[in-house]
């Protein structure tokens, strides 16, 4: 299992980010996202609790089709909006094929303590695989890919926010505080295995471009 962590500051208030969250798709960085549906929603103790299902294209090479024989991949996204504490938490996982690769992502959007007109975004991701002989390589690849694309994911959201609130500045800063906890010592994963893992990973995560 590989763990990824980083944090970003959005130059938008928490209220703006929370409204933008529901309008995040489509954006130019999410062309592979095909559908997005709310499948449950309720207000509980003043908090909005939502579950959505997203589908995306599953563009994989021939060899991978013995693991994943399907046209689409589905993603489940749970979220809790707490307007009193100005916090939005999302928790996302792929549906099915979790033995090949499971990507679980938690994102916390909170009003900045230093500047109430900004929002701090903390992202955590757990990447796991149970494919015999390939799990280390898939996890190592998934981790590197996630790290590389963290800014791209933010870019898509920022694009939507810029369109909704055109008179504000763009993204303020990105700080990478990658806490790299590696249970599998995956350092020696072969380049070949990595290149094979790439399409699987790409097909299982909705926010990658």
């Amino acid at each position, binding site marked *: 299992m590989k763990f990824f962590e980083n944090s970003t500051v959005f130059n938008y208030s928490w209220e703006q980010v929370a409204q933008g969250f*529901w*309008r995040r798709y489509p954006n130019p960085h999410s062309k592979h996202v095909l*559908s997005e549906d709310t*499948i449950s929603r309720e*207000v509980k103790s003043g908090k909005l609790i939502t579950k959505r299902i997203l*589908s995306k294209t599953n563009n994989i090479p021939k060899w991978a089709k013995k693991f994943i024989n399907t046209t689409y991949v589905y993603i489940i996204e749970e979220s809790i909006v707490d*307007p009193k504490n100005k916090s939005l938490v999302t928790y996302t996982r792929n549906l*099915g094929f979790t033995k090949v690769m499971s990507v679980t992502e*938690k994102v916390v959007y909170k009003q900045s303590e230093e500047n109430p007109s900004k929002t701090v975004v903390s992202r955590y991701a757990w990447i796991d695989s149970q494919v015999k002989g390939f799990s280390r390589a898939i996890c190592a690849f998934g981790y590197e890919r996630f790290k590389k694309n963290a800014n791209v994911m933010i870019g898509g959201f920022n694009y939507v926010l810029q369109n909704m609130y055109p008179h504000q500045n763009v993204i303020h800063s990105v700080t990478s505080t990658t806490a790299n906890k590696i249970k599998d010592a995956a350092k020696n994963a072969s380049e070949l295995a990595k290149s094979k893992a790439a399409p699987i990973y790409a097909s299982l995560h909705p926010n990658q471009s």
Partner: protein
Amino acid sequence: MDSIGAACHELKKQYDDCFNLWFSEHFLRGRTNDSMCASLFKTYQDCVKKAMKEQNLDLDEVKKDLLGTSQEKKPPQKS
């Protein structure tokens, strides 16, 4: 953004528009009564549930709630 079911696109759009308005004008202003979009949501849900069945999704897996439960993954302890 499209719906999972082609038949649900328009219902989804109507519901999403209502929801976005409710979220901005009501929920974020402390008014948590969510009856405003309830009937649109119901019609849209009937359509989506049907579409999900047609896609042969693992509905038990879909129903699982993890966020805020003991099953939620936690960041590793910082040493």
